[in-house]
């Protein structure tokens, strides 16, 4: 096994060198005065004028964050302040979170970006204070009268630049909100900040490109329908090569029982691809009447990283597509923030989905009561129910080459509360499962560092720093138990972790959960499996399995 660190081309520091730069000592200069510096590797490119124009967004111009002149519109300040005012009257979260912080510091070392950078403005408290200082100056009596004494400051271009920098170093993972005695959720403030930045034309290129593609084409990389059909043929070929069975992947099939919406990375990128193979095999095996849509082909909603309106534009098509196809209900794939959206926003934003039926598993008859209004069930809820009712045959030994650990994706953990379903599936499909340390899993899970649209490669240093705490926890189980696989139910995880772990914990691979289901699934009439879904031998020749090690390790 090759265990030397894989250093991504965007960064020229070795892991030890990057670690050495982390210093938690705050700078001398007061945070109210410190100016931000856009260093290569620590910011996301600005959106191009074409993108803004195409999406009808304000202030299209050639612009990059590192430039001195941001070419802001003349009335940018009024626009931002008016936007703040509007949001303060629309969102109780925003309003109370501006008012209630006591700066107790409980959140400070809870942020993965702070732990990985030592930059004090990555403490959630100061990230929020960047906004709060402006709020105090312009919206509170104390701030107007007492200014700096109460931490109030004028909105200037430097402050705006700071906003862009630090609100794109927040993955909206909500870990800080768990520890805050008032439940202050930085994700809410980041959402507002990004909307305000967007109102003067300062958005991330990657986020808007993905949003535009999702809106126009269906998936965030804009796969056209014929290419999607080709991809599905290849996926079917791959499944046939492993199992000898030809499965169906219906596209835009009218009258199917279930519409399946998963992040598009599951069918164009590794290792998501194997996860999709797992879904298709499972659905085939239980005889589910399902379809995917080439129009609503993106589970991820990159619009959410830009503004609530953009989020709504994109997920708005889910229900309309379900209606057009005449399906009864929807299953959602393994995705993190997709599920924050589905669980906490979708029905509110684009419901009621009264033309759909309350979800009932056609295989087990189980009513998914918890999804009776939104009509959308998580694939892990669906599969856990199948397993519990013994409707599928599983051979966990086919995953014996993996010693795995499970990463709770932030949004699924703290924005939904799904902890047991994926673990139940793991325990039924794998024999060697090891939990990471208690303070890094479940509701306390640490982010991959690339969520909420921070995963473009130009942002590599931020990603590697933000992912350090998670990688470090993986390293502990890697050392202690020889863990060689990190399983996650999020497409951004699957996209970001290979790079992140390659850098910090070489020797640990990444998978989705339904890849493991696909491996373990005993299909009727299948040929004897000699490889896993990756086309690799079922057991590592070099590492014979020890028979005594059959127990599943539970926390």
């Amino acid at each position, binding site marked *: 096994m090759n265990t030397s660190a894989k250093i991504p081309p965007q960064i020229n520091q070795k892991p030890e060198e990057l670690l050495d730069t982390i210093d*938690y000592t*705050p700078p001398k200069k007061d945070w109210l005065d410190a100016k931000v510096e856009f260093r290569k590797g620590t910011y996301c490119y600005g959106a191009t004028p074409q993108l803004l124009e195409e*999406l*009808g967004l304000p202030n299209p111009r050639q612009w990059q964050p590192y430039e001195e002149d941001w070419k802001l519109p003349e009335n940018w300040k009024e626009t931002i302040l008016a936007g703040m005012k509007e949001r303060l009257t629309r*969102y*109780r*979260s925003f*309003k*109370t979170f501006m*008012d*209630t912080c*006591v*700066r107790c510091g*409980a959140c*400070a070392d809870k942020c993965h970006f702070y*732990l990985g950078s030592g930059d004090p403005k990555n403490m959630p*408290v*100061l990230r929020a204070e960047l906004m709060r200082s402006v709020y105090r100056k312009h919206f509170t009596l104390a701030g107007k009268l007492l200014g700096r*004494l*109460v*931490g109030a400051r004028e909105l200037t271009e430097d402050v705006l630049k700071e906003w862009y920098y630090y609100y794109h170093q927040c993955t909206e993972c*909500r870990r800080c*909100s768990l520890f*805050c*005695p*008032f*439940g202050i959720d930085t994700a809410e403030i980041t959402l507002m900040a990004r909307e305000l930045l*967007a109102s003067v034309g300062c958005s991330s290129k990657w986020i808007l490109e993905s949003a535009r593609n999702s809106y*126009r*084409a*269906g998936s965030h990389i804009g796969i*056209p*329908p*014929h290419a999607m*059909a*080709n991809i599905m043929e290849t996926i079917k070929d791959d499944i046939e090569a492993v199992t000898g069975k030809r499965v169906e992947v219906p596209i835009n099939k009218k009258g199917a029982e279930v519409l399946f919406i998963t992040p598009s990375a599951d069918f164009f990128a590794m290792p998501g691809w194997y996860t999709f193979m797992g879904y298709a095999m499972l659905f085939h095996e239980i005889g589910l009447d399902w379809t995917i849509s*080439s*129009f609503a082909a993106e589970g991820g909603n990159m619009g959410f990283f830009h503004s609530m*309106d953009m989020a709504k*534009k*994109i997920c*708005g*098509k889910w229900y309309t597509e379900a209606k057009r196809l005449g399906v009864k209900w929807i299953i959602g794939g393994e995705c993190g923030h997709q599920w924050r959206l589905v669980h906490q926003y979708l029905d509110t934003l684009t419901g009621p989905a009264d033309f759909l039926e309350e979800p009932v598993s056609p295989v087990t008859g*189980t009513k*998914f009561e918890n999804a009776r*209004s*939104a009509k*959308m069930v998580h694939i892990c*809820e669906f599969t856990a129910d199948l397993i*519990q009712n013994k409707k599928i045959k599983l051979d966990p030994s086919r995953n014996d080459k993996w010693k795995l650990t499970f990463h709770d994706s932030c949004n699924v*953990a*703290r*924005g*939904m*509360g*799904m*902890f047991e379903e994926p673990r139940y599936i793991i325990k039924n499909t794998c024999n060697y499962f090891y939990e990471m340390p208690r303070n890094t899993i479940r*509701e306390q899970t640490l982010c991959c560092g690339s969520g909420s649209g921070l995963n473009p490669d130009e942002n590599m240093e931020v990603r590697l720093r933000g992912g350090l705490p998670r990688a470090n926890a993986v*390293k*502990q189980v890697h050392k202690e138990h020889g863990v060689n696989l990190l399983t996650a139910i999020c497409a951004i995880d699957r996209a970001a972790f290979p790079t992140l772990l390659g850098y910090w914990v070489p020797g640990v691979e990444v998978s989705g959960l339904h890849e493991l289901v696909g491996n373990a699934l005993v299909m009727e009439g299948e040929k004897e499996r000699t490889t896993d879904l990756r086309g690799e031998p079922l057991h590592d020749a070099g590492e014979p399995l020890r028979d005594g090690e059959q127990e599943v390790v539970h926390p």
Partner: protein
Amino acid sequence: MKVLYALLAVIILALVPIVGVGELGLRYLFGVIIPYAAFAIFVVGLAYRIVRWARTPVPFNIPTTAGQQKSLPWIKASNVESPNSTLGVIARMALEILFFRSLLRQVKGELRGGELVYEGRPYLWVGGLLFHWAMLFIVVRHLLVFLRTPPDWVTSAYIVDAFLRRVIPTALQISTVIVLVAVAYLFLRRVVSPQLRYISLPSDYFAVLLFVAIFVTGALMQQVFVVPFTPVRSLLAGLITLSPRVPEIHPFFFVHFFLFNVLLAYFPFSKLMHAPGVFFSPTRNMRNDSRARRYINPWNYPVKVATYEDYENRFRKELKVAGLPLESEGGEAMKTPVKISLRGEGG
């Protein structure tokens, strides 16, 4: 520097009544006018802020889930950490408000020799809890001043609290000792920890030092100046029965009393508003059931969403190539990108 500003402010505030009452003899001002004004500012300010919060809509159902959701019947759901019923929400809020549940999670994360280490750190939880509970006790104790015949439970609280004084007559009440220790801790951690020093504002030091000053002057009144109790009671009784009159009171009482009035008047404009604020926190006071019950956003305006028709027109050729079903045969393939406006029709 920031501490000095705050300290200076508190010292000046403490000197105001010394000069005002001691030198200038403005007893009516400090005994009646300022207390009424401070109380009015407190009540009106508090009500205004709370009404503002309450009237601000909650567009989305966004609880921070800290436990298992209610999903399949055989999976044990956590109705407190991830409440799926109103009862669960009440339990969650009660734990949060009475026992600072979230602070109890406090874990310190630190990089040591390239490894991130997490250690349980209950100090802030202990310090915060003691501070707030002791203060509640002190408020209850002060009710004695107001009431001619206090209810039994108030008297009991007083007796328990004065336990130390039974043993050593010169000792402080237990609640005073606890609150002084706790507030000293809360102040010192802000000064000692470089990170906390960095995030602290002059107003943070001011709030904590104002409390220190109120507690210390209270203790001094009792221990050093031995301010006679009866005239204080008659002043306060006069204030609450709206028949104010200022009897001969030891001037030092006015220092304690004035600082308390400052606290009242400062409260609605300051971070002390966290006390009512916690009740309004949408990440804590909402049910985690948004897929089971549709949550309504009162200002949910329509935005233009992508339509399948546009999509089919754009990708007609590709859909045909892929052999995928089409809704309609006609229509020109759209060459130009569709303009979508952010705010939409209803905006």
